[in-house]
């Protein structure tokens, strides 16, 4: 099953994602302009974009475990998924700046004073160098440092999940589920052997 899926996927060009994945953004915008996002379209748009960004980040995080544990190979699509996630975080931020807060003096105040905004912002800032280096030239240029740099993804996604949990009023289920999935996907990356060796090294030193 997985083999035939992999074969089928090999025929899908990665560039298709750059056409398909932006479509929801246009759809959300269209809904917002035509009353389809309810009585408060600004918050709704902001939330839709944020949620889709987080989902894409999580899918990106799932690529490696899917290959390791299920044999499903999506590596070819990972760059497009990551870049599209960044695209949605950027739109999410833009919505916040232009439609939501509006007031210039309040923007900086919110970034410093509101922990959930600070954390979301940190997530966005971490994603910037990752987006800028998501091209073949940078991969060649940076060599092994590229892989190291892109480990920042883990932290960025985690910050995104925490950001969501913090902004929810009361104890809500959805942000907890997202955070749980993120933590799970990160935990799958811990290799017990490596960890033991590292701890061993440290205690030996």
């Amino acid at each position, binding site marked *: 099953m997985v083999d035939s899926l992999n074969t089928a996927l090999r025929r899908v060009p990665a560039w298709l994602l750059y056409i398909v994945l932006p479509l929801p953004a246009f759809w959300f915008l269209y809904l917002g302009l035509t009353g389809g996002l309810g009585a408060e379209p600004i918050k709704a748009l902001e939330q839709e974009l944020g949620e889709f960004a987080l989902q894409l980040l999580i899918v990106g995080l799932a690529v490696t475990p899917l290959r390791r544990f299920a044999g499903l190979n999506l590596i070819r699509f990972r760059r497009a998924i990551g870049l599209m996630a960044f695209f949605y975080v950027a739109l999410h931020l833009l919505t916040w700046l232009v439609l939501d807060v509006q007031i210039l003096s309040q923007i900086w105040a*919110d970034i410093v004073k509101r922990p959930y905004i600070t954390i979301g912002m940190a997530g966005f800032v971490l994603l910037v160098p990752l987006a800028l280096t998501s091209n073949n030239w940078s991969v060649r240029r940076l060599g092994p440092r590229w892989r190291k740099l892109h480990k920042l993804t883990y932290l960025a996604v985690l910050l995104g999940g925490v950001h969501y949990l913090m902004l929810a009023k*009361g104890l809500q289920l959805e942000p907890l589920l997202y955070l749980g999935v993120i933590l799970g996907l990160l935990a799958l990356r811990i290799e017990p052997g490596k960890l033991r060796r590292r701890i061993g090294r440290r205690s030996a030193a």
Partner: protein
Amino acid sequence: MANRWKNTLTETDVTPETVYLNRRQLMGGAAGIGLAGLAGPAMAQEDALEPNEWDDITTYNNFYEFGTGKDDPARNAHALTTDPWSVKIDGMVDNPGEFAFEDIMARMTVEERIYRFRCVEAWSMVVPWNGFELADLLNLAGVQSGAKYVAFETLYRPDEMWGQKYPVLEWPYVEGLRLDEAMHPLTIMATGIYGRDIPNQNGAPLRLVVPWKYGFKSIKSVVRITLTDQEPPTSWNIANGREYGFYSNVNPEVDHPRWSQASERRIGGGLFARKIPTLMFNGYEEEVASLYEGMDLRKFI
């Protein structure tokens, strides 16, 4: 005691001709016409406010008993049965007991009150409520002299209010007012909107409306009112005391720890709605500021 406060906007400004008082609203409404002549002078006038549309008011709600999304209550609240309904009034009152909703309505004077409604989440609406003054209901029960506070409780019925199966808040939802706040002419129990029965998602069949406080104080679908001499616990204060105080008066100068309260967005302005400044006590400063004289409103949030 009814009609102690008047809008400049009248029923005819708000209610389209095709929408009319239906039976439940009419019972009290008819009494209101009879009593209006006896009422004392009306309090400060409200400047002309444009009420939100029915659809905005009834599809954008916080009512966690039906889910935490703004559109969840409109989708899920049909499960709630509001007939029969009674309100238990107990504690420090002369005539404690269960008051059937119909009996309450037969004895109350229903008026229209067009109020600003300011959510703690920094959005707002203007709602043309129909309702009666809470003071009239409390007087019906006979408030004893030692009473200082009024506690309120929402229906607890997880079978119909599925949100109560999740520990988002402690259930049932509870709220409270100081007695002078409860007796204030602006404080009403709303039973209708735009002359129609109040929809379930807005707190049917009767809910508190305290227009100078953040919306969560205006507890919905009330089944119990208790007069007491102790400050009663309130749901959001229990959930997060640092963010939600007992008073929760609308105050543009005291920010919520996670966002500014200096401005708000009026629902209904679409994707490019501008923010508008939030008014002290939500624009009812003249009427209610005296209640809090000498209190540090940064401390008593």
